[in-house]
């Protein structure tokens, strides 16, 4: 069994002035696996991803990504950790409309001195574009791309820093079936070929077979251990 990429113990999170309450007694996700996260709307899927990414504080409990306990990090350190170690892909792409395709991919380097904007990084960005078939669009404005193309650009941005953890929040929610399969394939390729860990939220149950395992938030009420090839309650 691979070492755990994500370990959660006694997580309790709630929004102020809200009845929402996320409770995860125990969750482990092994590295180099792909895990789909499903469940009804409002069950906390996005919240879980945000906590793992360090966008939201862990609240009560422990959340460890790799060897880093997020609760020990300040908000600014969580941001830095997220930018360098985690790749994020969003349903609404979250691209900057006044930047070109290539500049959007290089955005992490523009906003953090920890990611130097070197010639090697520019080469990697172009290489990623080639992998997703958009090498001819490097100088184009992202507003002129299709939805599927924009999501591919967003994935390239997420992969720029070679993160070991990919968090994708409904990346195919706005895409047609053909683009959906393409996007999922690109993400899964990162797991297979580059040893990343992928945690992807999706309402599309037809995609589940593509993943090593799945977490159903509708049933998440005990300890879950997710490993390559399967998952189950501990």
């Amino acid at each position, binding site marked *: 069994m691979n070492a755990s990429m994500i370990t959660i113990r006694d997580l309790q999170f709630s929004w102020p002035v809200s009845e929402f309450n996320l409770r995860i007694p125990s969750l482990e996700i092994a590295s180099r696996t792909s895990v789909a996260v499903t469940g009804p709307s409002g069950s906390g899927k996005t919240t879980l991803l945000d906590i793992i*990414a360090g*966008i939201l504080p862990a609240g009560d409990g422990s959340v460890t990504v790799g060897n880093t306990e997020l609760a020990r990090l300040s908000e*600014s350190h969580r*941001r*830095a*950790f*997220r*930018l*360098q170690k*985690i790749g*994020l892909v*969003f349903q609404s792409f*979250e*691209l*900057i*409309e*006044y*930047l070109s395709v290539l*500049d959007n991919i290089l*955005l*992490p*380097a*523009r*906003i*953090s*001195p920890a990611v130097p*904007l070197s010639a090697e990084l520019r080469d990697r960005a172009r290489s990623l574009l080639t992998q997703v078939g958009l090498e001819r669009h490097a100088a184009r404005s992202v507003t002129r791309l299709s939805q599927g193309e924009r999501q591919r650009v967003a994935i390239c*941005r997420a992969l720029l820093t070679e993160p070991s953890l990919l968090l994708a929040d409904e990346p195919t929610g706005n895409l047609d079936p053909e683009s959906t399969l393409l996007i999922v394939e690109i993400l899964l390729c990162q797991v297979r070929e580059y040893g990343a860990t992928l945690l992807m939220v999706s309402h599309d149950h037809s995609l589940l077979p593509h993943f090593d395992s799945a977490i159903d938030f509708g049933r998440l009420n005990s300890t879950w251990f997710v490993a390559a090839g399967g998952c189950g309650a501990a």
Partner: protein
Amino acid sequence: MLRNALFLAQRSLAWYRGRSITIVLCLAITLWVPMTVRMIVREFEEEIQQRAWSTPLIIGTRGSRIDLVLHGLYFQSVPPSALTMAETSYVRDSGFAAAIPLHLRFRTQTVQRAPAAPIVGSTLEYFEFRGLTIAEGHPLTRLGDCVLGARFAQQSGLRPGDRLLSAPQNAFNLAGDYPLNMRVSGVLNASWSPDDDAVFADIRTTWVIEGIGHGHQALSAESDDQLLEADGGGPLRANASVLPYTEITDENEASFHFHGNEADYPVTEVIAVPHDRQSQTLLLGRYVSLKRPGAICVKPQSVVSELLAMIFRIEELFRVAAVLSALVTALFLALVIFLSVRLRAPEMRIMKRIGCARGTAALLVGTEVFILLGVAVCLSLPAASVTRILARDWLRQFLF
């Protein structure tokens, strides 16, 4: 990091071109207005003071010092009652200063676009004193000649060789003074002073206008009876049928003459140009000690400073206006920053989610605001300078 911030800010501003241009123009105008007002006020002060600084002393009849200075420097206000040429001689003979008499009671008639201009009667020393030079034609050489200020010449369209009428002092006095039809002998170069709007003549010419000097038909015992009073065997006396000349020509110039003693002829003011500071003090002292009971001697510099001090109690209002203007500018800038942050909220949210530090986010917004402000300043500074140059003409027209 700053380089990246500049890159992102530049791209953002270029993308939202309309918004950026609008903000820059608003900022530029907000900065330009107080800058221009301040420059114009300074220019106004300098213009007023420059004339006063260049005129050491003015001597006139007892009365309002301000009226005296305004009259002598800017040819404004009601002419004070007259001194005499004896005052000019007194100053010269004192050995303390050169004396330049001014006789300033008359104006020209309106010509085309040019309003009536003051006729400044003086000597050739006045031109040297004020640094006035001839642009066209030649200086005053003959009785009845006049030289035009640059702006008056431009507005009236008059050139050397043309004729210019003085205006009657009292239009209702049909038996009174006659306008003099002066000959334009020259046009002065622009001096950017009240001299540009004036007409200059020899002081004797203005005495002719006043009626002290005149020319008329030559009379003899053989002259037309209708021109003579009944001859009682005594000296010939002309009656009102004799026409005094209103125009001095080559033919009749010799007939012009003055009656009485020149020392008694009127001057409205005397400009005294002391030889040195000590002479100035001594000359001033003579007038202060009432050795010249009918006259006063003032330093235009002091009078204008007092006048400006009075006027610029209004400067307090200017200061209040400037403070308010600065406050408005600051508030506007704050609004620009606030709007910039709000408009970029989705973009900042993206960057936050990716992992951008707070300081970096602030740097991005700050860089954009800095660029907007920088461009606005780069626009407003030259605009204020250009306005100042263009306003200089308007200000001079307004003042003088």
